[in-house]
């Protein structure tokens, strides 16, 4: 069970469309900003790595102290990025696959503009539930 975990979804134009702190530890203000900074800095590494493989799950691409960044890239170049301190790779892969399915459901909503922020509370609740289950 991960104590710290920060999850963001970055669209194809490099704009984050969803972010959430999904760890089970108590939230701290400075930690949240640090997590976002680490994830955004890892975007460059993801960019290079995404072209070298045709797999979707890129495992861990970057590390900072004892925190690891894992990334899952979809065919439309949407990146699901997770910052965590656990080593449970299978759990993380299942988490990404389930969130991918939820993301497709959001996309299928005709009133959702692709590339805009995901504001659905339903989506948020489900992502947090999935995080508790798999991470």
């Amino acid at each position, binding site marked *: 069970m991960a104590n710290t975990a920060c999850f963001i979804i970055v669209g*194809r134009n490099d704009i984050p469309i969803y972010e959430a702190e999904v760890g089970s530890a108590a939230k701290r203000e400075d930690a949240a900003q640090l997590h976002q900074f680490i994830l955004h800095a890892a975007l460059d590494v993801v960019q290079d790595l*995404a072209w070298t493989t045709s797999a979707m799950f890129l495992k861990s691409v970057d590390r900072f102290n004892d925190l690891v960044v894992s990334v899952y890239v*979809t*065919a439309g170049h949407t990146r699901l990025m997770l910052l965590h301190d656990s080593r449970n790779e299978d759990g993380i892969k299942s988490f990404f696959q389930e969130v991918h399915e939820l993301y497709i459901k959001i996309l299928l909503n*005709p009133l959702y503009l692709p590339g805009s922020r995901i504001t659905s509370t339903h989506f948020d609740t489900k992502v947090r539930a999935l995080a508790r289950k798999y991470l």
Partner: protein
Amino acid sequence: MGREVAESCVDTMLMEMVAMYSGRFYANKPELAARRIEAIGYQVGHQLSERYTMERPRFSDHLEAIKFICKDFWSEVFKKQIDNLKTNHRGTFVLQDNKFRWLSRVSIDPSSDKETEDPSTPGESKAAQAVSMYLYFPCGIIRGVLSNLGIPCAVSADISSLPTCSFVIRVKA
């Protein structure tokens, strides 16, 4: 994510969409109606591409993405594959479908064709123009799928011989 709908609903909805846009919203402005329908197709293609690429690994080059459209995507949307794919290896692809599903029930009366032939546009009759309105939606879908996979392009359709339909994809380099 796998509920089913009768195909007649899809056919009726497409007919109604073209009728509304070319008859009511943009009457006498076929270019605007065409662009609007194509934009709807673009959004649909965008959504469908994410949905149908979920299970498979990502694409390494343009040809892989075009082959995905010819085989998997066309089977999911039209229940058959593209019959013929041609390319000039310089960014142009021609996808030929010998019995395009959405046009399979379109019939053009040849006698009315001769009467209403417009002398100023000798190559194109009114019937062909009417049928071409129905092709903007699939062109938009193809463009949406390719744009989401990272390949900006322009798609046009050619119906010189019904029910065979060719889609010409020009990749913007």
